[in-house]
Each structure stands twice: as C-alpha cells, then as structure tokens.
C-alpha cells in the first residue's frame, strides 16, 4: 500500500508536460446560443414595452393582500397535500411491490382508481359529499349505525381540498417511488439481507437512498405541478393564488396583468423549489459516478 506515501520513484525524473489543449470549437452551439439570447431579448423587450401587459397594474396588485393570502393558501395546500401524497405514495409503492397478492392488489386498486378519476370530480366528491351522503355513520357494515355525523361537519372545505389533493397525489407518487425502487440494483438488497438487515431496514437505509436519484426529479415535477393543480380547489371556493387573481379580474376585468402577477409568483416559488430539488439531487448523488 505504498500509494499514499510519496514513493520517490518519480520525483527525480523531469515531470511530464501538462496537457493544455485547444478545446473543440462548436460553432453550431454558439449560433444556437445567440439565437436563443436574441429571442429571449426580443421577448423581454416586448414584455416590457407592450402596453397590453399593463405593468403598473401588475405592480399595484403584486404585493396586495388578496394575492399574498392566495399565495399563502397555495403554499399551504401544496405542502400539506404533497406530504400526504409522498408518505402515502411510498406506502402504496411498497405494498405494490410486496410479494403478497393481497397487499399489492389493494395498492393496484387504489392507484387505478385515484389515477383514473379526474381530480376535479374527486374534489367535488369530497367537497359536496353531503349531497350524496348527508349523514356519515360508523357502525356494523350493512347493519345498525352507532354514530352518525353530518358530512359537512367533519369535512370542511379545507379538509376536502387536502383530502382530494393528497389522496390523488398519493396514487401518482406511488408509481414514482415504485419506479425508483425497482431501478436500484438487486445486489444491493441482497448484500443488505446477507448482513441480517430486515426488509424494512434494507428499504429505508439501502434501497430508498439510492432510489432517490430516480425519485427526486419526478417528485419535483409533481410538487411544482401541485402548485398549479391546487387551483382546482376553487370549485370548493378555496381562494388560492390563481383563483385569487381570477376573482380580482372578474371584478375589474384586468385579466392579463393579473394573470401575469400570479405567473410571476408561481415562477418565484418554482425557482425556490428548483433550487431545493438541485440540492436534494446533489445530496443523493453521493457515490454515483457522475
């Protein structure tokens, strides 16, 4: 093991000439870059100068209470429903991969149903469940009921939104987590098993950390998508960011500037999430060859 201590063998000889090479020229790429830059400049220029964008109106609403409280609601909805989605999704993915046909069947059914029914319908269902089941009761199935509640008392609008978004998201996250787990080399779990690690431990300590490289980017997608999807809860009169903007322009008819206002906020939040995704990816790429 003499690698680390200087072996002295090469010290006496004159050192090799350092490689300094002229990089390959890629004129095509430079052209592409210039084209993109010019297009971007034109876009920005027209964004700024086109009077129809009504930047003063954007400025006036950008930090307004209604927009900001919509933003807070959006963030809250997204955060809570993504947490539900990721946790439940991971559980479903593990169930789906289990060798037990009952568990994997239940997970399959869940995924099939919740991916299949439009979120809009699911939200309406949770929001207006009392139109279908005015009373919910706990009791013997098909038999007497012990407790009976009014559905509206249990499921508030916020609760309905979270239920709808979270349960729906779980079905999608389950597929993402499953793909991630499947991609990890089987030798890794065999090695863990051979060390006496239980299946749960193996999953938690060995497989999932490596699966994260395949899981994080699509999960970033889902989170960023959820930011915008959550605007479907407007059907429950829950004022998140886009709906807040819509309410404002449905009153003053300044549609374009208000949509721009909302879009800028979405872009800002997306940027933050993109940065977060970058660091998560870096964290989980430790030990990978690239």
């Amino acid at each position: 093991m003499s690698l680390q201590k200087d072996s002295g063998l090469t010290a006496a000889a004159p050192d090799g000439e350092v490689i300094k090479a002229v990089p390959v020229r890629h004129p095509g790429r430079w052209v592409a870059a210039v084209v993109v830059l010019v297009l971007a400049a034109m876009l920005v220029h027209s964004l700024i100068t086109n009077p129809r964008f009504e930047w003063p109106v954007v400025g006036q609403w950008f930090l307004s209470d209604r927009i900001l409280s919509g933003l807070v609601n959006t963030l809250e909805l997204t955060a809570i429903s993504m947490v539900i989605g990721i946790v439940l999704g991971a559980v479903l993915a593990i169930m789906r991969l289990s060798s037990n046909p009952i568990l994997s069947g239940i997970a399959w059914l869940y995924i099939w149903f919740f991916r299949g029914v439009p979120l809009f319908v699911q939200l309406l269902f949770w929001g207006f469940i009392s139109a279908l089941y005015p009373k919910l009761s706990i009791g013997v199935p098909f038999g007497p009921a012990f407790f009976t509640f009014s559905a509206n008392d249990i499921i508030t609008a916020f609760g309905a939104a979270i239920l709808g978004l979270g349960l729906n998201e779980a079905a999608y996250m389950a597929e993402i987590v499953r793909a991630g787990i499947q991609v990890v080399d089987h030798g890794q779990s065999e090695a863990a098993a051979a060390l006496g690690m239980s299946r749960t431990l193996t999953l938690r300590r060995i497989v999932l950390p490596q699966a994260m490289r395949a899981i994080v980017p699509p999960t970033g997608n889902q989170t960023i998508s959820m930011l915008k999807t959550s605007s479907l809860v407007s059907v429950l009169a829950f004022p998140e960011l886009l709906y807040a903007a819509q309410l404002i322009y449905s009153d003053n008819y300044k549609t374009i500037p208000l949509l721009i206002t909302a879009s800028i906020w979405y872009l800002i939040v997306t940027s933050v999430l993109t940065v977060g995704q970058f660091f998560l990816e870096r964290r989980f790429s430790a030990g990978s060859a690239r």
Partner: protein
Amino acid sequence: NPTQVGDAEPPGVLTPLTPDTAAIAQLPAAVVAKKELVVAMDVSSPPNHFSGPDGVSVIGLDPDIAKALGQALGVRVKIVGIGFDSIIPGLAAGKYDLAIAQMSPTVKREKVLDFVDYFSSGTALAVRKGNPLGMRLDTMCGHTIAVLKGSFQESTRVPEYSAACVKAGKKPIQPMVLPDQQATILAGIAGRADGVMQDSPVLEYAQKKSDGQVQVIAVAHTSSVGIGIPKTSGLLQPVRLAMQHLIDSPTYKQILTRWGVANGGVPSAAVNHNSD
C-alpha cells in the same frame, strides 16, 4: 372550433328586425368590410347563454339579443361560446368584437370596456328543498351564501347585505365565491352554503330543471347588465343606436318572453349606466 349558433331554436316566433340606417352609418369601416360581428359569451348559465342540445350551438337570451343586433346593423353575427377568462383577452386580441354575457357595469369595469344596457335582472335567494334553515332575505346574517365569481351579487349585493348586518350588530354574511354556476347550486344542495344568491332568471331556471332541489324564496332589486365594447373599437355608438332600435321594436319583448324573463326589459340603451 368555437361553439356557434346552429339550428337548435327553442319555441317562440321572433319578428325579424329592420335595419337601422343611422346605426349602420356609424359602423367602423373594418366591420363594414367584413360584414360580421363576433360576439363572445360564456355558455354555463341558462337561460341567458348555454349550450344547445346539439352540444355545439349557444342558445339563450344573449345569443338572441346578439342576432337581433346583427339584423339591426345589417351584418352577420358569429357567436363564440368561451370560458369567462378568455373573454377580456379575446376582446383585447381583436378576436371578438363584443361581449354579450350578462356583464354588470361598474366603475372599475368601465375603465376597461364601455357598456350599453340591454337587460336587467333581479337578485334571487335560493335554498335547499324545503328551506330547512328558514332562510329569508333579512335573516342571512352569519350564514354562508354562495355567489358566482364576478357576478353583481358577489361584488355588490352580498357586501351590501353584510354591511347592514354588521351595522345592526349581527355577524356578517360569509360569502362563498365559486367559479361556476353549477358549483353554486351544488353548494346549496349539499348544504355547504346556506343559500345561493344569483340573478333571478338563473335561479328560477335552476329550480325548474332541478326538480325543486333548489328553491327560490325571494327576489329583490334589479340592476342592468350591459353589452361590453372595447374602448377603441368605434362600436359604442352604432351598438347603442341598434340596441335602442331593438328595445323600441316588438322583437325585444318577444325575445324576453321566449326565455321567460319578460319583466327584465330596460327602457333605454343607456351607456355606462353603472350601479355603483
């Protein structure tokens, strides 16, 4: 392929309107050249504007008004049924010339569009079948009332009632602002909202069609709605004249009667007659 007027005509005979030469004379050259007006409206709200049985055409009060205006102005009318969010950008884009979509003029909106009155309607309060909460117009304080986003009820009526409640030392009304007509009705039926406030023709129609699952219990106030006209289009004067021409003709009454809103007529085609 936007929804256009097809052959799906409801019963009732309309007398064709004679051209109004004074109005025609004021039409901008561009409109004269293409001999067509494109009129935008949404399609979610019977009897004002909704999808015909063929799924393609838009029928209702607003399309009829639009067609009659076309006759008065001597141009074809193309009716485009589109989501509300598209109407203003579409007008700005020059895709549409006019919006006839039950828009209530307000000071804010008049900064963006000009309005010519063509109809007026009352505000109705509807509740679940049997009115289990015993709602009345004067007992709405503290209750949740569903309204349609962008409606006159949202912007004006409910805030007025709510202010009165506060003044009387009661709890304010909780408005529940929903993005479409059906959601407000559903909120009423599901008991999410204790009452629904909407234009009276809309709720009366809903009561009929939903087998009384919603029940109109009061109608009050009336306010006018206007044809939305882009500020620089040059269409304000010709449309005003043509609308007045329509109001003065028997056709106007025929149209209103046909859609069951005979008491919604306006006396004159007032411009920017806001109710603020």
